[in-house]
């Protein structure tokens, strides 16, 4: 039964990682922009839940509102600034980093630098064979699976998904066919931001809300995207699963202080031998 518990713990953390990485992966794969403000988007999703809770709304309302708020913010940012950086990915990295910094410090001011605890909408745990399983982690596992499936279906099986893929494959030809690539890029960025917002809203009860909640996951998310390979939807998801499983599983076998760098060593070693990432063939 303890093996089941171990598997559950690892699966729960893998789900958290996948949730966080998806938004980053979608934007990086579809638009070629590494969004360094991704951690802050996740944090804003968490902050939305907190703000709604302060205003007296139930926490599930905040979880529904978070992706919508972030989609609007993402769309506005893409229209105003991000679209100017498509031709210069390095500037885009620095620029999004700056945006992230501004967001982070504003929220730090709003929170007074304190940490805030957010309660799970579904509290407590259930026992199975004498081992305790957390309800909220179970919810996260299922929501993650559903979101991954929905995103995959949307990007590979719908008309909009087809147009997005077309616009990425050959923007000129897409434009010639009457597809508005500018609108699609705006939509894709907003979609990635919404995923980040949803991730932040779902995971914040497991952690605590602080201005730096996203920073911790940002580095591991980039590692996941590199490991999984940029260019597809499944690559980053696979990378996130691998990084998450290592981060949760390694402390069982080595001392925790070593486990953290070891995740990076293993991932970078794989990248050394598979520079294209785990998945490359067959873009979306």
């Amino acid at each position, binding site marked *: 039964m303890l093996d089941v518990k171990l598997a559950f713990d690892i699966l729960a953390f893998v789900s958290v990682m996948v949730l966080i990485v998806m938004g980053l992966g979608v934007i990086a794969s579809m638009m070629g922009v590494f969004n360094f403000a991704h951690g802050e988007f996740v944090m804003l999703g968490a902050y939305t839940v907190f703000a709604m809770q302060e205003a007296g709304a139930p926490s599930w309302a905040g979880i529904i509102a978070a992706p919508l708020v972030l989609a609007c913010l993402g769309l506005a940012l893409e229209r105003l600034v991000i679209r100017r950086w498509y031709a210069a990915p*390095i500037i885009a990295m620095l620029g999004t980093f700056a945006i992230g910094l501004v967001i982070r410090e504003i929220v730090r001011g709003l929170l007074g630098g304190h940490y*805030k605890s957010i309660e799970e909408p579904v509290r407590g745990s259930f026992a199975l064979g004498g081992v305790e399983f957390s309800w909220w982690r179970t919810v996260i596992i299922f929501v993650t699976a559903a979101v991954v499936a929905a995103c995959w279906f949307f990007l590979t099986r719908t008309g909009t998904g087809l147009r997005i893929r077309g616009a990425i494959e050959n923007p000129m030809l897409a434009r010639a066919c009457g597809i508005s690539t500018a609108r699609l890029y705006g939509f894709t960025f907003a979609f990635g931001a919404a995923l980040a917002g949803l991730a932040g809203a779902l995971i914040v009860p497991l952690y605590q809300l602080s201005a730096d909640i996203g920073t911790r996951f940002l580095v591991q998310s980039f590692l996941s995207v590199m490991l999984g390979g*940029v260019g597809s939807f499944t690559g980053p998801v696979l990378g996130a699963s691998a990084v998450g499983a290592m*981060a949760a599983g390694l402390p069982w076998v080595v001392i925790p202080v070593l486990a953290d760098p070891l995740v990076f060593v293993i991932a970078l070693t794989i990248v050394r031998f598979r*520079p294209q990432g785990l998945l490359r063939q067959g873009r979306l």
Partner: protein
Amino acid sequence: MRSDNGRSGTGPSLGRRRLLAGTGALAAAGWIGGTAGGWVLRPRWAHAAGPIKMGIATDITGPIAPSGNADWQVAQFAVEQINGAGGVGGRPIELFLEDTASDPKTAVGNVRRLIQQRKVDVVLGAITSAMRQAIKDPIVNRGRTLYIYPQLYEGQECTKFLFCTGPTPAQQVDELIPYLIKEKGRKRFAMPSANYVWPQLLNRYARRVIEAHGGEVVFEEYYPLDQPEYSATIGKIRDGRVDCVFSTVIAPGLQPFMKQLYESGFQREGGIVTCVYYDENLLNYHPPQEMDGLYSCLDYFQAVDDPFSRQLQEGYAKRFPGTRYLFTAGSASTGMYRGIKLYEAAVQETGGKLGREDVAAALDHAKIAQGPGGGAEMVPGKMHCRMNMYVAVCKVEAGKPRYDVIRRHDMVDPKEC
């Protein structure tokens, strides 16, 4: 990300190597913070000999800002009280603030300004040990100025002209651990810890006390400060049949640890969690049910029933209505108050002489009869002070957590130097 088959135009293009180059540039650009000028709080009246200049060097910005701002407010509160009562031997205190910005590199330059430009007579401040180590040399050695460090810490700071007014490991552990072993019947301890100097040295001391009283340390383990996942640790706590978790995990790794520990049913099955830096600020860090039954040991809790402490809290609340920065022990605020009052007592004894040697000689045995949690006295020759220590347990009533003080220990010895 992109296939190489003749994509035209200025579309997105980003290879791994360019990504690495970009991140490198980011790191090199760095982040330079800190304020340019500092703040001055001038007294409302003057004295022929001029004011006593007191420098406060604390973290007004950055991750440690909540504690630093509390320290700064308490310093203003204490100094206004002293000036309002006629100053020290008739002279008012003028306060100078420099932001140490939670960053030792920024701090050194700012602290130098206190010494060289403001020419302060004493510096109080720093919260983390890293910060104390960074600024003590510019203050004490090169700056030839008296320095008072207010935070609870790992001990072993025995620098001349550096006085510590917060609790040491002996003060935090000597009463708490025997209580847990003898009264609560705890035998098997786990020490999950954040990986830095305070937990390491505190654990070394606590382990000796645990073993001296017949307890056993099942494991002692260190984590990166922001570790988000603790299932391996929880597994060890369960497999090792641990009955008391002596935690020194700190935020941001703290909350996921406490949540996973609670979810594992540890507390429900009778396990005790104890963490000696938990003050009133921490009550909001976790959902109430995760805090229920947690033991802490500090020099002051707001629940301490002492008329002077109550009066202090009321005065502070009146001076800073609705403030987010509480007057608590874990943020070094109590040590800050104690430090300022001990300095006042020392200067009173020297008859207004502010020379470093004179004041240090008087501070060496300075006493205050009252303070948050009670009076305090420096142990002669040891540069640390005796103070009352309180063991408290967190109780939850109607969804609201609070501390109940269950034991008071008078004038506990710091056992340092």
